[in-house]
């Protein structure tokens, strides 16, 4: 198993693990932010890259995960990490399930439209109603506390602890998804992406698989959103905006769709791009838009296509993920 890819992955992990020793506070937070977005991108990759469902509304579940912490956080004390994290994933998963019931039967291009429409609905829910506390969002006075039975393994007001917490969760999500994709369920999803018609004709209940994928992807997006809220200490409706949905799709195409590594690489590439553009001009979205257009026209396979010229089989190469 010790091939070039494993070495590259191992080296990257090592780098990420050792980074806080070398980097300054700003960069530690930045890399943590990137890793959170990588979790977000991984969650969408399950849906887009492996089930073939292009959702333009995935930010909704990211935002719902974040808002769960925001809404659960008490005013005068810290929320409990071990309670709020599962709650966030559950809330996001339930929302994804609810939307999925409606949209998963919708085909092709219409699916893109309805996922966007439902995401906007959630956006308005948080932006315009009292429930969501409106366009200013929610500020949390305290970071969550990770104590369980009186024992506090790590301190979430410490940026380095947050960094490692996020790193561990990123690796966990990555490994989890690798496992799922090798499982019968995951194979069926990939079958659906490859040839949905044949899957149906072979007797697979397509609707249930798509709904499960949509829900799982939503729950994982909620995890990412939760971590984002944890890191920044506030939430606002822009977390659910279609900009956010578009950006996470961009991460996928930057890294190469249908590859777990690609999702992670894409998140890094996206943040790198936006940081560079933001440093260049106030109107950085112009540069981003232009970059996206050029990317799609000239490099639709993303960075992965640059690194890998040969066609891969999804199954059959044990090292691929």
């Amino acid at each position, binding site marked *: 198993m010790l091939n070039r890819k494993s070495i590259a992955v191992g080296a990257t992990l090592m780098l990420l693990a050792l980074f806080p020793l070398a980097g300054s506070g700003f960069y530690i937070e930045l890399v943590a932010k990137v890793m959170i977005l990588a979790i977000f991108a991984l969650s969408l990759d399950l849906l887009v890259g492996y089930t073939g469902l292009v959702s333009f509304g995935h930010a909704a579940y990211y935002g719902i995960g974040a808002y769960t912490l925001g809404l659960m956080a008490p005013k005068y004390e810290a929320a409990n990490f071990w309670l709020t994290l599962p709650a966030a994933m559950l809330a996001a998963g339930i929302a994804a399930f609810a939307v999925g019931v409606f949209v998963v039967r919708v085909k092709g291009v219409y699916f893109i439209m309805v996922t966007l429409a439902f995401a906007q609905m959630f956006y308005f829910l948080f932006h*315009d*109603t009292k429930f969501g506390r409106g366009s200013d969002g929610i500020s949390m006075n305290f970071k969550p506390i990770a104590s369980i039975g009186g024992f506090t393994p790590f301190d979430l007001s410490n940026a380095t602890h947050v960094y490692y917490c996020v790193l561990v969760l990123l690796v966990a999500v990555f490994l989890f998804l690798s496992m799922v994709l090798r499982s019968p369920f995951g194979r069926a999803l990939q079958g659906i992406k490859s040839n949905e018609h044949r899957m149906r004709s072979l007797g697979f209940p397509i609707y249930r698989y798509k709904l499960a994928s949509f829900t799982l992807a939503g729950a994982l997006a909620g995890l990412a959103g939760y971590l984002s809220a944890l890191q920044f200490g506030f939430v606002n409706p822009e977390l659910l905006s*279609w900009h956010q949905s578009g950006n996470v799709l961009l991460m*996928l*195409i930057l890294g190469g769709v249908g590859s777990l590594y690609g999702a992670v690489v894409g998140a890094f590439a996206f943040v790198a791009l936006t940081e560079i553009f933001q440093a260049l001009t106030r109107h950085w979205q112009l540069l981003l838009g232009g970059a996206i257009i050029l990317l*799609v026209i000239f490099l639709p396979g993303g960075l992965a296509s640059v690194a890998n010229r040969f066609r891969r089989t999804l199954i059959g190469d044990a090292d691929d993920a």
Partner: protein
Amino acid sequence: MDIYSFLIQLLNGVQYGLLLFLVASGLTLIFGIMGIINLAHGSFYMVGAYMAFTLSSLTGNLFVAIVVGVVLSVLLGIVLEWALISHLYKRDHLEQVLLTYGLILVFEELRSLIVGNDVHGVAVPAILGGSIPLTATLSYPVYRLFMSAVCLALAGLLYLLIHRTRVGMMIRAGASNREMVSALGLNITLVYRLVFALGVALAAFAGMIAAPVSSVYPGMGTQVLIICFVVVVIGGIGSIWGALFASLLIGLADTFGKVLVPEAAGVTVYLLMAAILLWRPEGLFRRAG
């Protein structure tokens, strides 16, 4: 709500629905005939509105502004298709979505650079400035009736164009078989370019005539795009009647929703969409594919 208020809301709902239909038909044309999902369609609406604002400020006349604006939008559509959209014909939905999303960012930022982010009003032309009295106290603006009439007329023209002319036949043929059309010597590139330009112009024109009523503000493009998506999902692509029905349904639902349940303002439309999706995931009308 008494009968006259009801009538006013009804007319408002119809007017909004017809405007949506205009925008949605541009979207539908581009997707139905060229197979391109164009997220930037709302941006063209926004561009139209801002053009109406700047040009009518310059010339002092909204009609002149609209004429010039339409010409400019056709040109914009042609350039965009030639430079960017033509790359998308063989690409999958994800790539189309991303490229046109990038286009939205570009348009939004360009607008911010050139015109700024302020909200603007556009004056209704004097000739259409009056109101038709309904009761001693209530009257209905002529301009809104004008809008509805124009939208209806354009809808009729579109129908005639697509279904009764040779050009329309070419367009519909292009929809079903691109290679064959090329083989027959019909210039598919030109057809697609014109169809795209037409789509852009429809959206921009809608933005221009809507400007006096809805005012001109940065988020208007996205707002109309998403509602158009709901129209398309409900009404389907490939059916003018479907689009018309869905547009009117949404126009009325949104208008009455805002009046009857103001707290739930924007949500009515989505609830309607959800209900219809549950009942008929295929949409209310048969699809072209």
